């Protein structure tokens, strides 16, 4: 089962964890990305995430499907990404997977967040005291 969401509301991590609970799954791995107070040495004040919604949702689902292909024992996959304005400590993304065995839970969760960062059409702009930058835009 795949659960995908892209939301401008605060992410409820506990609810995300409940999505992946399964009686046959003894192992749940969760990655939570939060807004750090620093980025490449500069003090971050806030972030803005912009998304190409329809493509982001489609690509998020594809990433989850690829994980299910690679680890057929996966029972539940949840990927929830925030958009809009975020402040220090806010949750930007939650990935949660459940499997019968733990090694696969780590591998699948890491695959999902790594692949998400490469292909999902979401853009982050960091705002500092003295300027702003679209992350990764320039070499």
């Amino acid at each position, binding site marked *: 089962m795949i659960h995908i969401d892209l939301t401008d509301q605060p992410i409820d991590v506990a609810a995300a964890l409940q999505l992946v609970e399964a009686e046959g799954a003894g192992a749940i791995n969760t990655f939570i*990305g939060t807004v750090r107070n620093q980025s490449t040495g500069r003090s971050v004040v806030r972030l803005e*995430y*912009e*998304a*190409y919604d*329809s*493509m*982001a949702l*489609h*690509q998020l689902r594809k990433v989850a499907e690829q994980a299910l292909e690679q680890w057929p024992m996966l029972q539940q996959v949840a990927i929830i*990404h925030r958009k809009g304005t975020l402040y220090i400590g806010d949750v*930007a*993304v939650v990935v949660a997977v459940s499997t019968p065995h733990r090694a696969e839970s780590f591998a699948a969760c890491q695959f999902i*967040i790594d692949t*998400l*960062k*490469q*292909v*999902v*059409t*979401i*853009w*982050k*702009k960091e705002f500092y005291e003295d300027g702003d930058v*679209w*992350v*990764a*835009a*320039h*070499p």
Partner: protein
Amino acid sequence: MNLKIALFGIAREIVGQSALEVSAPEGQSARGLLQDLHARYPELARLSSLAVAVNNEYAAEDAPLREHDEIALIPPVSGG
């Protein structure tokens, strides 16, 4: 044909609007579209990458574009 192109993130800022309509020869490829846009907006060429998406999928460079496709410019993503 006329192509309508959605713009996001820094590409939207460079162009100064969130959508663009361009006229292109029939069978224009993704690569051809990018060359056109690089000529009109040189700052786009300075990005780490710039992909073309068609109907929510990344398009191959030689993919021909069609008038009713949902086309978007995809600057380097930075979600997560």
